[in-house]
């Protein structure tokens, strides 16, 4: 259900505040569950280490399908990371964001799709390629339920 993800975005800089304790009235007995109540799970905190440099992008196309990234998925990209070979990166190619895997091949860097229908791009052959950020998570919604 996509609702969960919307909450994650909104809370980027303002962590979700959930109650620490269930009983707030001093009179009477405290709830026996109080000692066991945790703050709950905040997906932002769990998935994002650098909130100020993390951006969300929407995936369009099927060239990364073998890496588990499908059309319509939500991509979480951290711009503060240095791209290393093996990582999936967002590159700026001909004025558009393009999703590829950065690969070292015979001593040279290239950008590969994760779908055999798409040829690799040799970095030294294309003029102006900029690595914009490193993809750290993909959020795939399993259709609508409920």
């Amino acid at each position, binding site marked *: 259900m996509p609702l969960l993800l919307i909450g994650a975005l909104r809370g980027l800089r303002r962590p979700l505040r959930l109650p620490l304790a269930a009983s707030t009235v001093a009179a009477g007995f405290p709830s026996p569950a109080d000692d066991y109540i945790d703050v709950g799970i905040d997906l932002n905190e769990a998935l994002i280490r650098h909130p*100020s440099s993390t951006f969300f992008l929407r995936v369009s196309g099927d060239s990364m399908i073998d890496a588990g990234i499908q059309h319509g998925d939500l991509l979480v990209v951290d711009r503060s990371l240095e791209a290393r070979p093996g990582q999936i990166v967002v590159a*700026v190619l001909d004025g558009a964001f393009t999703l590829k895997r950065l690969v070292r091949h015979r001593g040279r860097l290239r950008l590969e799709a994760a779908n055999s229908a798409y040829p690799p791009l040799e970095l030294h052959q294309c003029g102006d390629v900029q690595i914009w950020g490193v993809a750290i998570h993909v959020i795939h919604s399993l259709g609508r339920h409920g």
Partner: protein
Amino acid sequence: MADVLALIDANNFYASCEQALEPSLIGRPVVVLSNNDGCVVSRSSEARQLGIAMGKPYFQIAEQLARHGVVVRSSNYALYGDMSQRLMSSLEPFVAELEVYSIDEAFARLPRPRHGDLSRWAAELRGRIRHNLGLPIAIGLAPSKVLAKLANRIAKADRRHAGVFDLNAAPHPDPWLEQTPVEEIWGVGRQLSRWCRLRGIANARQLRDMASGELRAKAGVVGLRLQLELQGVSCLPLEEGPAAKRETCVSRSFSRAICVDDELRQAVASYVVRAAEKLRQQRQLCGRISVFARTSPFAPNFYSQAASAVLPVASHDTAVLLQAALPLVALIYKPHKRFAKAGVLLQELQPETQLQHHLLAPLPTEQQHKREALMQSIDQLNRRYGRGTVQWAACGMTPSWMMRREQLSRAATTRLGDLPIVWAR
């Protein structure tokens, strides 16, 4: 060794934000227009190089912009606000103290290292912000705020400085101060600069060295402090964290003049809705609400009027504020006047927590809680699905007076439906 003050700001902030989230704009000339697509308020360095002037009305230069292939954008405050927060929180770990001064600039305090050289630190910070956010920044370093501001100006003026200028490290600071006209000094207003010019004081070096008694007689302690700051004595402390807001204002110019009272009422209603939302975000209540409207100051028979009402009990409930504000519209409205702008001012703000159980509370506690839950849900829906998802009927359905923002980019960092596309092809 003594602390250093830095003024750190983003170059061409609005245009840079547009370029940061839209890769097709990288390296292309971009300008951003003010409210109602009025004037150029930000130019990318590419647009600057084309000689496009700041502050020029859009309609005057639309053709020139088109001829040069300049990309034109309306002000996208959702994007700039979000990028500003990202910028400020990225700066914080690099400095000892940070004072956010405006949407795109901050003062910072940091200890000077023993060897005295901060150029490596500054270059690394610039590189980091450029890499992580795609924003170019400039850094001015000096012993005081006024000098830091001046150093920042020098850092930006000359490409050779690569966006960093340390006035402390300059062997001869005087020529730099002499390069700075008195009008450009932070804290020198129009009146003081005219006074200086009349006395032959044309630049920052001359103001620094003038007789302080004379300056004091003219500008009092404020003037003396300014002079001390120019001498490198820090007198203006950093203000960390914004002070609690005492007033909240929402006002806009209309895309066309409004003559009908119904339309003015709708406009005021929509500003009340927005102001109440802000108030709830700030966790404050207001005790007084004012409504104002005016015609264009450039047209004959200028008319401007305001009216205010005191709330029986301080509130941040949209319905309560609407009830108080809408009758005021009838008081300020005048037939045959062509209204160009209106606004709402919420005053006598107090923290939410101050009002507990008031004898005069208009609603029983339980109902009060229900109202608050309702407001929360409305705010949540509007944040989640975009402003105006849940609308108050008083605002009208499709207002034609709304601010013109015809070339608005998407809320690329704050709204799920507006995320940039990354191509997998």
